[in-house]
């Protein structure tokens, strides 16, 4: 991030009031800089995610095979 970007833009009092009255606190851009706490995946969830990952890799290979067959 550049020094220029770190500086808050010039905002009038009216604009500040407008923003604070209209947006929810967590809608502000700066509020979104805070990360959401990480969730550790459980055994079953990991099994499903890995199974789907392998499924996708295998199916992409099938699609590639079909393209090769079609172009022959």
């Amino acid at each position, binding site marked *: 991030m550049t020094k220029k*970007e770190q500086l*808050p*833009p010039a*905002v009038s009092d009216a*604009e*500040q009031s*407008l*923003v*604070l*009255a*209209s*947006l*929810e*606190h*967590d*809608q*502000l*851009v*700066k*509020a*979104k*800089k*805070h*990360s*959401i*706490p*990480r*969730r550790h*995946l459980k055994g079953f*969830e990991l099994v*499903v*995610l890995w199974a*789907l*990952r392998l*499924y*996708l890799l*295998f*199916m*992409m290979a*099938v*699609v590639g*095979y*079909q*393209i090769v*067959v*079609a*172009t022959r």
Partner: protein
Amino acid sequence: MSGTPQSLQAQPLAVTNNAVVITHEDIDRAHDRVRVSAARAQHGFFPWARLLWLLVGPGVLVMLGENDGPSMLSYAATGAKFGIGFFLPFVALTFCIAIVVQEMTVRLGAATHRGHAELIFERFGPFWGWFSMIDLGIGNFLTLITEFIAIRAGAGFFGVPPWAAILIALIILYSALISHRYWTWERVTLAAAVFNLIFVPVALLTHPDWHAVGHSLTTWRPLPEFSKDTLLIVLADIGATVTPWMLFFQQSATVDKGLTTRDIRFGRFDTALGATLAALAAGATILATTPLLSHQMSTENFQAAEFAQALEPLIGRFGASLFALGMVEAGIVAAITISTSSAYAFGEVAHKPHSLNLPMGQGKSFYSVLTLCAVAAACIVLTPGLPLVYVVLLVNVVAVLAMPPALVFLFMLVNDKEVMGDLVSPLWANVLSTGVVLLLTAAGVLFGISVIAPNVFAVLGGR
């Protein structure tokens, strides 16, 4: 005021020297929200209609955006090869599936004010986050290529040279961005997206048999023969309505528009309205090309211009021109929404500013990614000798294959109490979305079998 779960509200406002740090993006979004609050404060039909007008957008855009070049070609091929029978109600069903899936992204966006890629990265970590980003990146880029193919082919019907068609499309894409306001971008793109309904008059010009349409919608018959071709078109039609980019786009657009938990009801309406309009256009395209089936016209590997040319003897030059124009429009709107989806996801993951409310100076990376994606896809389409026809045929199939992993992330997020609070999915929605994941996975597995062991279908009584 906030309906966001407590766990996500714990962070204080960003403060510098006792002043809240407010960005240009916040101010633009606040102006949009002031109009929403003003409409909400009034009672009666007209304020309600105004509120609806202010809050619709992401749902209609995502649904009509997904009625893109390859999708309309899939519907056209469906009508020409199989007629309306099973497929008219089937396509309506796929849009019901799309509503179930996309509604979850509205809730997620309104509850967390964060984009889909950002949530996956933060909640499940970069390992799984990168997997979903790679899926999205590859899928989006392949689809973008097909949008420019559709634009080139559709414009070719009018004799426009490919380079000119692509250049005009890029200029339109850029023109939608130059206001640097989400609201203006959304309205311009919505205006373009509504032209997707151009396929309705094309269908009417073919003088459809309304009795057959009614029979099809009520009985799903005649059923197509169980074959590899049928399976491919079924998969392509599913991929024409539910794809990973839609999840990322609608959630990010919901956040960029500034929707809150109070707006979820309107977000649902927006999604259902978009699905209805898109289903109407999709059904009209199937209807429009059904006469090609009765004329026993071979439409293998037809592109937009070929469909328009084949229809010309049946519906005249005017009708065929509308069809070709519809293909161009479908490609342009999808190119806008899909490249925006890529830019949102990149910004969320790279922690770069990502909003259509950003001035060019503050949103260089966002606008650069958006523009570069589109330009790169356009350049590929203009490169002679590339076997692009296979990309068009298989891009919807790839979308269906990539959908189950994307849906599982969505399912996990929308059932995460810490993220969603009281807005977690109800049981019926979980049952439906689990059914969708199983259906898409089964369709993918069947497709795999049809490629690897095509004779299996003959054993089962098909071809």
